[in-house]
């Protein structure tokens, strides 16, 4: 059941922020609604206090994709379908396009939004690992302030972010990426389509001859929230991208994840899958 609620459809971002600022405790943003409406049905504690929804779906202020000097700016309410279809994202940030294509079904992708994905911050949010390896920065606005911060810092715990009740994530900025970077994205679900991720991995590598000049590694679903692996990245920089080292790095990634999550019933299959798949991704990236 959807509880008795009020509904506001602002004409622009300013009106949306004003509405949020007035009723901080009981008002919430709705965009695609693909998390919030199922959440209402199960009487989720996260949504229980909501009395009014502010609908930002399709708001022109939040549905742009613009290439600028400092990178690609993606409006917070851009849908996954629009991300999949966007030629710049497909060309310049392909891991994000690939992850977006694996989200839910056509119907979900037609409504669900990119900011909604990481504001909800489910462990399995598919867009998060690619955004993290692209060093995504997000812009957060309210009537009282405007700030930018790395997505990595914004995500705190499962279903918990730094977002304050009167704030909206208005855009995501992906910094320009040198052409030499090669990347791979991997998603494992329990079925091929319309699957909740069990494991997601994203990796970006920049090679100088056979030397790993830069590497960025992120996981999702298999860790409590999407995250980077800075220590492993530092360890890999300067190393030669040959089979033995890539194997060692893959084994270490599995160990690192196990350290974070502890032993679980699923570790017996997830650990070798993570290690094997990460090794395959690295091989693909380094041999291209």
């Amino acid at each position, binding site marked *: 059941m*959807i*509880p*008795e*609620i*009020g*509904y506001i*459809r602002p004409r622009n971002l300013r009106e949306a922020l004003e509405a949020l600022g007035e009723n901080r405790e009981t008002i919430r943003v*709705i965009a*695609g*609604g*693909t998390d919030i*409406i*199922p959440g209402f*049905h199960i009487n989720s504690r996260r949504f229980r206090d909501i009395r009014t*929804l502010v*609908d930002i*779906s399709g708001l022109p202020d939040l549905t742009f994709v613009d290439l600028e000097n400092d990178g690609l700016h993606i409006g917070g309410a851009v849908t996954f*379908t629009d991300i999949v279809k966007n030629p710049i994202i497909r060309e310049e940030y392909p891991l994000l396009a690939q992850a977006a294509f694996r989200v*839910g*079904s*056509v*119907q*979900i992708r*037609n*409504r669900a939004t990119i900011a909604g994905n990481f504001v909800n911050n489910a462990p399995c949010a598919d867009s998060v690992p690619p955004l993290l390896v692209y060093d995504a920065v997000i812009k957060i606005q309210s009537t009282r302030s405007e700030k930018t911060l790395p997505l990595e810092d914004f995500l705190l715990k499962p279903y918990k972010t730094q977002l304050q009740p009167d704030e909206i994530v208005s855009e995501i900025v992906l910094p320009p990426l040198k052409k030499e970077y090669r990347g791979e994205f991997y998603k494992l679900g329990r079925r091929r*389509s*319309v699957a909740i991720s069990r494991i997601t991995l994203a990796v970006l590598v920049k090679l100088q001859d056979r030397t790993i000049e830069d590497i960025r590694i992120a996981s999702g679903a298999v860790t409590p929230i999407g995250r980077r692996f800075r220590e492993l990245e530092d360890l890999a920089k300067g190393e030669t991208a040959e089979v033995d080292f890539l194997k060692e790095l893959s084994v270490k990634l599995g160990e690192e994840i196990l350290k974070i999550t502890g032993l679980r019933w699923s570790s017996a299959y997830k650990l070798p899958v993570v290690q094997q798949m990460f090794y395959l991704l690295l091989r693909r990236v380094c041999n291209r």
Partner: protein
Amino acid sequence: MKKINIRFKVNGRQADLNIAPNKRLLDVLRDDLGLTGTKEGCDIGECGACTVVLNGRAVHSCLILAAQANGAEIITVEGLTQNGELHPLQKNFLEHGAVQCGFCIPGMLLSSYALLKENPHPREDDIKEAIAGNLCRCTGYKQIIQAVEAAANENNE
């Protein structure tokens, strides 16, 4: 709860409604407008039985508040038939035995309809992806995929 006024176009006809804001598009289509071809299955966006086409895109009417559809153009299964003539998709679903119990069919038709509008020459994989969010427990999907292929071929002749 304060009711709100909304208007949208369903199957080419203007609908003006005064509704409670917690009503879903699915509820308004079925209960207020009597368009019961749109089915209620899982309620959480997994089965696709409630699929309608909203502004050209297949969406779950169970996950959209009716108020969010204000100003939109919506097509339901009732809108596929033109002047008493079944849509090519509907004809081919019948001819290929793609309908058994029928509960998923309105959603299947609208997902396929949205696909063919955007991509009149779909490959088999495109069709599979387009209906991946529509569950069918009877047919095994094969006949449905054949029906969509046949309808696409007819369109292209």
